[in-house]
């Protein structure tokens, strides 16, 4: 059943005419004063297991109704805990080159679709078109509050569904044209409604909630409910979406020469903590080397120590990347040097992302340098001194196309299927910058699908001594960069996207030049205005009439002069 919420009988009739081929499946609801009541009415009375609620200014494509059962079958199979699906919403993570959290599978006066193919978990949906799993909603006794009007119902409905434990999703199969931009001013008024904000704050730990039209600020009301059982919207949205789905697998790979045993132990301990808190990804840790493993590491029974074949004439670091990608059976790889470590804090969130993002995604996370000083760099696990340093932000990953690496190797989780196809010619020709080469190779595949998450995933030890990145002789680095530049230019790790950062810079530069030119115009106008005033004050007529102006100000009270202002 498709329920159309129509502003009038006429607009309902127009919708029916527009979708004549399936008008028998459409019920027009007119004379409504509350979209909230419509939702409750539909949940209570819909005779089917599923239904769609649409605005009367939505244009559905031909075949929409015929293909709906396929979508429902796909949702039941792949997202068995689904409760509500829309065609636009806010994801708990960023996607695409811009790291955008807004997912749009529709066209409207704001723009067109900005993502493709994948069903994505969402925190809030846009209400132009909603697919309801009536049976699940009834099973969970989900209802929305009986507020008036036609604003915020979609946000509150999404939140109610998530709080009740069901998944809220955005699906490309529901794409349509929505012939309305909505009323931002109406929304802005609704967004400061205390009733709505208090209702949301009683459900969520969040102090702000994002949706397509903006942000609802809950800062001043959220702590009234500090003792309530509440949920963090993004995390709960992901947890619900994962219910009934299988886990993905992630292999953390640590390449080592076993010459920093203490730091390697630290690395292993933190991966184990990360693994312990990962709920939706099966994490395994592989330590790989061309050297013999150290006996003292036998206390880590969960870690696999693999010895890779070596070509002693050459640095093996890139070869190990390719070798391990072919050796392990895993969906994703994370390369963590033996002096790096993982932060376990966001492990559940990250594991849910990896499990739920489109298959084959590449994930980018924040990382941070830490300056460390060890008393004994061989055996000490934790440093005598440490201070936090530079932070690498995940959202800048697209800068890698500029020819400079913006993402440390431990800041990316990459699909194993892609890493394993890095050409041997590339592996054999590059020694250093193997991390950058691997990232670029993944980022330039046709299947590249970026997911951007601004949480801190890994710490990077910076010590100076014994780290190749600090060697004063740059010959080996320069040689590798020469090869990498050649490979990019030849197209082995290249795509047309290489020009993207330059384009962005050009546009941002153009904006800057425009602002500068506007400033110049303003400065010039200001200059001319002052010059004209000074010229006028210098005229005889102005000087002669000055006593009259002085007299006027002295005699006429200022209050009266103000009342005269509009007359001038």
């Amino acid at each position, binding site marked *: 059943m498709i329920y159309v919420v129509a502003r009038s009988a006429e607009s309902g009739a127009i919708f029916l005419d527009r979708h004549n081929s399936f008008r028998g499946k459409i019920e027009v609801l007119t004379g409504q004063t509350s979209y909230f009541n419509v939702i409750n009415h539909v949940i209570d009375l819909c005779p089917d297991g599923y239904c769609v609620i649409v605005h009367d200014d939505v244009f559905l494509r031909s075949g929409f109704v015929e293909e709906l059962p396929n979508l429902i079958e796909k949702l039941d199979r792949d997202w068995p805990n689904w409760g509500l699906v829309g065609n636009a919403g806010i994801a708990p993570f960023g996607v695409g080159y811009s790291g955008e959290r807004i997912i749009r599978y529709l066209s409207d006066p704001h723009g067109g679709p900005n993502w493709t193919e994948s069903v994505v978990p969402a925190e809030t949906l846009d209400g132009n078109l909603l697919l309801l799993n009536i049976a699940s909603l009834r099973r969970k006794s989900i209802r929305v509050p009986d507020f008036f009007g036609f604003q915020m119902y979609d946000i509150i409905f999404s939140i109610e569904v998530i709080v009740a434990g069901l998944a809220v999703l955005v699906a490309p199969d529901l794409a349509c044209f929505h012939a309305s931009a909505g009323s931002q001013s109406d929304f802005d008024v609704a967004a400061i409604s205390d009733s709505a904000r208090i209702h949301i704050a009683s459900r969520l730990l*969040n102090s702000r909630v994002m949706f397509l039209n903006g942000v609802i600020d809950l800062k001043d009301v959220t702590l009234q409910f500090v003792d309530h059982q509440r949920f963090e919207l993004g995390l709960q949205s992901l947890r619900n979406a994962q219910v009934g789905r299988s886990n993905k697998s992630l292999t953390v790979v640590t390449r080592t020469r076993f010459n920093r045993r203490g730091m390697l132990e630290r690395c292993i301990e933190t991966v184990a903590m990360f693994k312990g808190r990962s709920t939706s990804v099966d994490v395994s840790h592989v330590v790989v080397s061309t050297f013999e493993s150290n006996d003292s590491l036998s206390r880590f029974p969960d870690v696999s120590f693999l010895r890779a074949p070596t070509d002693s004439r050459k640095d093996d670091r890139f070869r190990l990347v390719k070798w391990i990608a072919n050796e392990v059976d895993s969906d994703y790889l994370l390369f963590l040097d033996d002096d790096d470590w993982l932060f*376990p804090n966001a492990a559940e969130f990250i594991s849910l992302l990896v499990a739920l993002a489109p298959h084959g995604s590449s994930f980018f996370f924040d990382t941070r340098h830490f300056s460390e000083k060890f008393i004994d760099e061989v055996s000490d696990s*934790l440093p005598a001194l440490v201070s936090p340093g530079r932070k690498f932000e995940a959202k800048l990953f697209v800068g890698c196309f500029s020819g400079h690496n913006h993402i440390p190797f431990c800041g990316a989780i990459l699909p194993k299927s892609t890493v394993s196809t890095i050409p041997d010619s590339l592996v054999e020709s590059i020694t250093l910058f193997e991390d950058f080469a691997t990232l670029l190779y993944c980022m330039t595949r046709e299947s590249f699908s970026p997911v951007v998450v601004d949480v801190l995933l890994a710490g990077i030890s910076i010590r100076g001594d014994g780290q190749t990145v600090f060697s004063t002789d740059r010959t080996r680095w320069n040689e590798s960069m020469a090869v990498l530049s050649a490979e990019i230019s030849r197209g082995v790790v290249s795509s047309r996207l290489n020009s993207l950062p330059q384009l962005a810079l050009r546009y941002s530069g153009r904006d800057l030049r425009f602002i500068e030119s506007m400033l110049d115009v303003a400065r010039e106008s200001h200059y001319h205005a002052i010059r004209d005033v000074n010229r006028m004050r210098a005229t005889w007529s102005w000087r002669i009439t000055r006593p009259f102006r002085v007299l006027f100000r002295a005699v006429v009270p200022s209050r009266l002069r103000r009342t005269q202002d509009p007359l001038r």
Partner: protein
Amino acid sequence: MYIEGVYGRLIVQVVHRGEDLPHLLDRLIPSLTRSTTSEIELWALDYSSGAHRELPTSFDRVTVHWFGQIRDGDCGFGENHNFLFQARGTNDDFVILNPDCILNNGAIDRLVATKLLSARAAIVEGRQWPFEHPKEVDPLTNETPWASGAFALIDGRFYAECGGMDEGYFMYLEDVDLSWRAWLSGHSVVYESRAVVAHFSGGQFYRPDVISMEEHYGLRNFLRLAYKFFGEEGERRAINLLEENGGVRGAGQAIADYKALLKERVTPIAGNVSHPRVKILGVNRFHQLRLSLIPE
């Protein structure tokens, strides 16, 4: 000093939730045995409700005394640690440790050695990695205004004499309170940077769109601490600090909660508190800052 208790069998107190058990068993307890050469008594308490798996009674050199929730309802950090201290029935020194930590090799032995050298020390605090707290430490004496309760060695006699932790905070800042009472009773609080614990504390991971419980309780308890040690004037200045420059996030609710729930149950310390280590320099800032330790 009760070094006999410390050296003969080292006592460690941990209060935890049921979900912490895998980490306790797989990471924390094994690290305990690497942190000291002494025999260890682990006094652990699961403060979460519901039935949980108990810890084994022994683990290598570790003897475990495990307790479930001490009563229905929520018990705070101080109340749980006081319970463990009283359950032991001795005034031996003890290490207090958060359940999400991993101790570095020899970490507890370093705390013990430092305490032996610091006759006045009531609390010897270890250093947290990777985010060391950026508070001041005297370069000659290693004295510090207050010690975190995440990893510290506490003098048992001092703890008994001062009545243990103030349970009125429920959660957060009871460690600052205990430290200040140490200073005011003639003891000292010492920082031992060579005793290191891996503790991925939450501060760096707070999200801008979620006000954490730590933030809320921290602000509320800040007012309680200011009132308890500095009276009405302290409370007034603390409220001013929360409200100035447009107000700290969540200040309004914290002030309301403090006035409604906490204030009437606090008895301010009599007389004017005047001690160079007992000071409030900002919202929840009881120390000068070491800027090199603050992430950009």
